[in-house]
């Protein structure tokens, strides 16, 4: 039983991180109708930069227990820096066919692959035991690293925050209006350009923070960018493109399935996820929460 809970929590932790990336994807798709293949690259960038930032911080004398805030700040920082210029590049293809938008993001994947290697080297980077400085929580006979619990809580908080932002703030309403109907928004005086830039940067930050938060448990590696894309896409397909709720539920499904698969059927790991993806698509072509499109 303990092993099972252990497993479940591991899955939920992974889901928490996946949710952040998927939320970024959904936000950008919802508003700008662009599917960003480079989401995995942002994730990896966040991871690498997070490791680097923590190492700097510790070398500069910071206390080890500050590493979580450092990771978050690092994720936000690097996301804010690369988001705007990349959005400016994507601006050149907003009006074009989706195929070209997808290809442009694929070009970014290629470029990031080597850029990451150039800046951070070919070897995976990790923080070692730094995460354990927070110790472990115990509930009965179940042990969970406090760090993991903190990340799950943070992710849930961000989920609620995003929801509140989208539903209750003025900018959130503008965002949703622009997503519904760009022309109408423009006609009503919305600076669509600024909305797009902000949304994309926000989506980027969600990705980089996700990557930063994962490094205590997984090494930052050059495989990350291309591997994560597949999982992230599984999440948005299951949850439904453009839906935040879908990102949450989809992430949970994928995260837990993955944990179960690794434990019980190691060979099947990703296979199981794809089977679920296909099954969901047969039953509900638009995903669980997506809008039907044909």
């Amino acid at each position, binding site marked *: 039983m303990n092993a099972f809970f252990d497993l479940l929590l591991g899955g939920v932790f992974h889901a928490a991180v996946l949710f952040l990336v998927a939320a970024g994807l959904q936000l950008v798709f919802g508003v700008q109708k662009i599917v960003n293949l480079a989401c995995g690259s942002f994730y990896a960038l966040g991871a690498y930069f997070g490791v680097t930032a923590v190492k700097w911080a510790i070398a500069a004398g910071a206390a080890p227990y500050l590493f979580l805030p450092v990771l978050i700040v690092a994720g936000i920082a690097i996301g804010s820096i690369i988001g705007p210029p990349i959005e400016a590049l994507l601006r050149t293809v907003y009006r074009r066919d989706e195929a070209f938008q997808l290809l442009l993001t*694929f070009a970014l994947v290629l470029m990031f692959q080597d850029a990451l290697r150039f800046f951070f080297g070919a070897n995976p980077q990790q923080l070692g035991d730094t995460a354990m400085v927070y110790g472990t929580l115990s509930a009965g006979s179940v042990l969970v690293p406090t760090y993991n619990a903190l990340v799950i809580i943070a992710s849930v908080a961000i989920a609620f925050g995003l929801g509140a932002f989208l539903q209750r703030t003025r900018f959130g309403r503008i965002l949703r209006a622009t997503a519904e109907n760009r022309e109408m928004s423009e006609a009503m005086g919305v600076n669509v350009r600024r909305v797009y830039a902000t949304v994309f940067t926000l989506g980027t930050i969600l990705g980089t923070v996700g990557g930063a938060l994962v490094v205590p448990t997984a090494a930052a590696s050059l495989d990350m960018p291309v591997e994560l894309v597949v999982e992230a896409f599984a999440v948005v397909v299951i949850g439904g493109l453009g839906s935040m709720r879908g990102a949450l539920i989809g992430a949970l499904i994928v995260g837990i399935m993955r944990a179960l698969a690794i434990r019980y059927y190691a060979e099947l790991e990703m296979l199981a996820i794809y089977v679920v993806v296909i099954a969901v698509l047969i039953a509900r072509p638009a995903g669980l929460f997506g809008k039907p499109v044909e």
Partner: protein
Amino acid sequence: MRVAAIIAALVALAVLPRVVSPYFVTLMLPAFAYGIALLGFNLLFGYTGLLSFGHALFVAIGAYSAAVMTAKLGVKSFELIVLGAAFAAVLVAIPVGLLSVRYVRIFFGILTLAFGMLFHSFLFKFYDITGGDTGLRVLRPLLLGFAFQDLDKTAFLVGPFYYYCLALLALLGFVMWRIVGSPFGLHLMAIRENRRKAEYLGVRARLFCLLAFAISAFYCAVGGVMLAIGIGQADPELAYWTHSGELVFMTVLGGFANFFGPLIGAFSYIFLKSQLMSITEYWRFVMGVILVLIVVLFPRGLVGVAQTAWARIKRS
């Protein structure tokens, strides 16, 4: 005039092994392989308007069919291998296609990406059958029954195999030319331009998309066979989604709106990649920049650039 250019190109390619180094000639083999694969891919993308991000799946089926048939089943006849691989690819293409053509645009791309990765993880995990991450060896086949035993590997590849592949490319190219010019091809283009209107004119959109999907799978598998025999190996990375992305890249590099674009794209890409790899280890970055330039500035690819230049020359 176009016919003359094609004949000239074929003659040039036929003569090539006599005038350049064997290394260069061995580069041509993947160019032929991708040329065939892309002819099929572009039927789906350029002519029908469906962008698949999972077509490397069929290239991998071709490669692994060649491996399984030569190394495990002892089938050495190249002709049988090609037929077997194509059959396997079409068999897979039907359910995948049936599921995928219900969607259009981005959903089609994502779904095909998922299928491609499904196959990849299948190849990776079932190492008893597929050799896992080390892949499977592909043995030298018999061409039209001939073994060419006295030729070593390189001599075989730059000799009989080269000419066989060239002939196959010419043949399959001709077949594809007829397909795109046929009533079927016209209906595919109608689907691309305006699916709703096409249906009102009696075009059976879903069925034809499925057929285009199957034909493209056929071509990709044949390309995969050629690729695998040239390398001597079938590798699971052939099915990875980034390889599918490369297929799209090559097609757009050459020009997806023109019949010959994908062929030019295949040759250019292979050549460009090998040159870049010898200059820098960060060749992926350069390729990425090139793709950005194409997407933003030269969306009609090399063929488009040539056409614009030619139009300008004619005017002055």
